[in-house]
C-alpha cells in the first residue's frame, strides 16, 4: 500500500472514501454543527488544520515508538498529541478571531474527540504511508470532511424554510439527508481503486 501517488490518496480521501459519508468518521460535528453554512465552513477549516498537525505529529511519534519498541503506547500518545493540537488551535482562534471562537463554542474542544482526527492518525499508521503520503491523506480527509459538512449545512438551511412533518423533524431528517448524500458519494467509488 506504500506506493500510491499523492494525488490518488488525496482524491480518494476527499471523494471516494469520504471520511464522513463512507467511513462514518466525525459524525458528531457533522450532525451537530451543520445548522449554518458559515459555522460549518469554519468548523471544517479548524478540523482540517488539526488533522494536518495531528498527522504530522503522529508520523514522527510512530517512528519514535517503533524505534524504542513501545508500539502499545501508540493510541495513548496519539490522543495526547491531538488534545494538545486542539488546545493550540483554541488559543489561536481566541486571539485572532474572538467571533469565530464564540461561534464554534463547545465544538472546538470537541475536535479532540472527533474520530476523524484520530482516524487520520490511525489509518496512516496501518496503511504505512510515508510522510508526504500521510500529509496528503490528512489534507484530503479534512477537505472531504469540510465538503460533507458544507453540503449538509446548505441543505439544512434550505430545509428550515420548508414544512416538514413533525415525526420526521430533528435527527431523523438529518440522517435521511446524510443517507442520500452518502448514496450520491457512492458514485465516486470507482475513483478509489
Amino acid at each position: 500500500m506504500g506506493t500510491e501517488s499523492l494525488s490518488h490518496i488525496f482524491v480518494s480521501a476527499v471523494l471516494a472514501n469520504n471520511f464522513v459519508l463512507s467511513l462514518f468518521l466525525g459524525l458528531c460535528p457533522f450532525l451537530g454543527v451543520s445548522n449554518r453554512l458559515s459555522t460549518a465552513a469554519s468548523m471544517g477549516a479548524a478540523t482540517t488544520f488539526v488533522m494536518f498537525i495531528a498527522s504530522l505529529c503522529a508520523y514522527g511519534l510512530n517512528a519514535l515508538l517503533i524505534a524504542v519498541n513501545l508500539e502499545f503506547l501508540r493510541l495513548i500518545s496519539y490522543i495526547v498529541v491531538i488534545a494538545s493540537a486542539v488546545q493550540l488551535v483554541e488559543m489561536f482562534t481566541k486571539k485572532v478571531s474572538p467571533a469565530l471562537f464564540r461561534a464554534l463554542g463547545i465544538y472546538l474542544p470537541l475536535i479532540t474527540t472527533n474520530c476523524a482526527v484520530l482516524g487520520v492518525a490511525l489509518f496512516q499508521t496501518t496503511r504505512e504511508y510515508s510522510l508526504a503520503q500521510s500529509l496528503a491523506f490528512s489534507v484530503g480527509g479534512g477537505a472531504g470532511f469540510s465538503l460533507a459538512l458544507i453540503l449538509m449545512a446548505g441543505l439544512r438551511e434550505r430545509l428550515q424554510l420548508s414544512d416538514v412533518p413533525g415525526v420526521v423533524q430533528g435527527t431523523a431528517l438529518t440522517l435521511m439527508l446524510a443517507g442520500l448524500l452518502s448514496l450520491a458519494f457512492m458514485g465516486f467509488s470507482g475513483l478509489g481503486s
Partner: protein
Amino acid sequence: MTERTDNFIEGIWRQNPVFVMTLGMCPTLAVTVSANNALAMGLATTFVLVFSCLLVSLMREIVPKEVRIATYILIIATFVTAVDYVIQAVSLAVYEALGAFIQLIVVNCIILGRAEAHASKSPPITAAVNALGMGLGFTLGLMALGCVREILGAGTLFGFSLFGAQFQPWVIMVLPPGGFFVLAGWLLLFNWLRQRGEQTASPAPQDTGGTHHGH
C-alpha cells in the same frame, strides 16, 4: 422503582445513547453491517465504559479540575488499548472486521460524556452501575441496527441464512447509506411512538412544532 434500578435502567431506555441522545454515532453506523460485529463492538464499548467510569469515580477526589479531561482520556485510552489486544487474541476475524474502530472507542463521546457528567460526581458503585446501563443500552442500539442491516442486506442473522438461496439481498443496507437509512428509520419509529403516546395522553391535538415553520 428504587433509585439504583432507575440509575441502571436510565441508560437502557430513557437516556438510550443511540436512540435518545444520538451519541457515539461513528461506531454505531460503521460496524453494524452484521449482528456479530454489532455485538462485539457493543460489549467492547461496555467494558471500557464500566471500567473507565469506575476508575474516574475512584480518582475523583485526587484529580485537579484543570487537567480532568486529559486524565479521563488517558484512562479511557489505557482500557481501549487493553481491549484492542484482548480482541486480537480472542478472535482475529472480529478484530479485522472492526478494524480501526476498536481503537476509535477512545473518542466515543458516550464514554467521555459519562465520565464527565456522571462518574466524576458519583461514588464508584453508582458510577459503575450507571455505566453498565449505558453500555447495555448502547449494545442494544447497535444490535437493533446490526440485525436489521444484516437481515435486509445479506439475508442472514449471526451468519445463519434465513430465507434460503432464492433471496435477493438488499445490498444497499450493508453499504454506508444503509446505515444512515436504518438509523433514521428507527428514530422515526420512536418519534412516531412518542407522538402517539402524547396524543393518547391528552386528546386535544398538540402543536408538535412542525407548523412553526414555513410561515
